[in-house]
């Protein structure tokens, strides 16, 4: 019990701190590294919630794919000049205030609906074996979205190629 809580708080704090650092760094590479850190923390959260498959997917796809892509692009887009420029736009104060107010509202909402979140404790074995369950669901009940997602990826691939070509 204590371990669980400690792990939770560890991953949570890590995620939040990394996130804050992501949005405040001057250097984009730094932000990317911190984002990787945040994503890994979130993968840990997933593990804690017994969603192993998802955690694996998170690490492989998100960190190994997407963040690598990010880093490649940061490298292509020469950001030396951007490093010296102003980092925050002119509406930063208003944006922070608005976002915080929204957060407050969400918190208040959560507080108000406390009772709705009183679920009976879930058994730890729910949704086990996770990979099989997810796989079965993916290929039986959610076959259509699966196919659509693959088409989406195809389209995205074509789009990326076209967009990044030097000469059309």
């Amino acid at each position: 019990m204590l371990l669980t809580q400690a792990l939770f708080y560890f991953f949570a704090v890590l995620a939040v701190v990394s996130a804050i650092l992501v949005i405040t760094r001057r250097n984009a590479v730094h932000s990317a590294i911190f984002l990787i850190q945040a994503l890994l923390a979130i993968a840990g959260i997933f593990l804690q919630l017994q969603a192993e498959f998802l955690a694996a997917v998170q690490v492989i796809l998100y960190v190994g794919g997407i963040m690598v892509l990010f880093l490649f692009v940061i490298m292509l887009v020469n950001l030396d000049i951007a490093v010296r420029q102003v980092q925050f736009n002119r509406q930063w104060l208003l944006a922070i205030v608005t976002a915080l107010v929204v957060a407050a509202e969400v918190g208040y909402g959560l507080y108000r609906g406390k009772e709705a979140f009183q679920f009976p404790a879930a058994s730890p074995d729910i949704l086990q074996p996770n990979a099989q369950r997810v796989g079965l669901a993916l290929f039986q009940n959610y076959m259509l979205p699966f196919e659509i997602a693959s088409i989406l990826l195809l389209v995205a691939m074509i789009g990326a190629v076209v967009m990044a070509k030097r000469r059309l």
Partner: protein
Amino acid sequence: MIPTSNYLMLSAVLFTIGVIGVLTRRNIVIILMSIELILNAVNINLVVFSRQLGSVAGQVFAIFIITDAAAEVVVGLGILIALFRNRETVNADEIDLLKW
């Protein structure tokens, strides 16, 4: 057992941080990263409730979201590269052709 609300709070905080990042930063790359944060916050939410309610749909949906995020980042970065080639800038507020 960690109460669900904790996870939800975490998700909310990450979401907020992501939103602040989108609204505040000039650098488009950072903006895209902030969007990833937002998506991940949503993912946390989904997984929590999938565990809570015993339905694998939540996780399946989270996979789809990750897939979708991948596609989106790919295209987005492609646009960024094209934009950079034309404008020599990656600052969002310098791209305002649709200005009145």
